[in-house]
């Protein structure tokens, strides 16, 4: 599977996936069924039980675009476990305690995710 290891191929596949997602979403937007676009589905998930997705989106933003220069624990595995643990806690809250978040709560979750991704899952060290 040598061809997968080339960075250019990775880029190309990512672009393809993005393109497919965009065209699929445009199709879903234009067809007759209401409420089946990707954004709508994600919105129903996030404002229902699965607001850990919002947190993950923030974490990925911090991971991709930011990143501290000193690690907190120095151990990538521990850092990653902390990230997963927070996600698990959020998932439990949504799933079993029937907590729902308002838009303000989503903003806070995005910011928490962003800082967690920045401090605990940086690509800079």
């Amino acid at each position, binding site marked *: 599977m040598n061809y*997968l*290891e*080339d*960075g250019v191929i*990775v*880029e190309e596949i*990512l672009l393809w*996936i993005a393109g497919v*997602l965009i065209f*699929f979403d445009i199709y*879903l937007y234009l*067809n007759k*069924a*209401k*409420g*089946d*676009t*990707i*954004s*709508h*589905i*994600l*919105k129903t998930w*996030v*404002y229902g039980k699965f607001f850990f*997705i*919002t947190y993950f*989106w*923030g974490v990925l*933003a911090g*991971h*991709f*675009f*930011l*990143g501290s220069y000193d690690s907190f624990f120095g151990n990538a595995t521990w850092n990653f476990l902390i990230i997963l643990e927070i996600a698990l806690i959020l998932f439990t809250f949504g799933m079993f305690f029937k907590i*729902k*978040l*308002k*838009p303000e709560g*989503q*903003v806070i*979750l*995005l910011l928490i995710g*962003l800082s967690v991704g920045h401090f605990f899952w940086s*690509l800079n060290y």
Partner: protein
Amino acid sequence: MILYKINEKVIIKVKNIINSKIARITQFFIIVIALSLVMWDVYLYLGDQNENISLVIRQSAKGKLFVITWIWGVLSAHLFVSKKETKRNIPEYIAIIILLLISIIIFLLGRYIPDELPQYMQLIFLLFGAITGYYLWPQTLSKQENMDL
């Protein structure tokens, strides 16, 4: 008359079922894409090469393609931060055109900036994207959804 009403009810029910079926397909599609991306990234990470998805996105965003950061910000507002009011200030297609124009400007800006951007600029683009996304292209919560929160 009664028959007609029953008929209408049936049609509405069938429509709902079809809608939810297509929505199911979308849900399935999102999950499959997300899972396969994660598995592919794990596979790339476990190999000995230096390329995985995070690194590719990071390198592109740090270099000339910081439009990615901006789009990420716009999407985080669009997908996750909905507005409560049902009123919309500008029609959606105009908002999308404006966002596309800004994206093109930022993309072209990236081609003419010779050096790597400092990291705080990434944060600025992210926040700028989120704020523009929130004001131009939010999703709205219906009254029912708002009540449920």
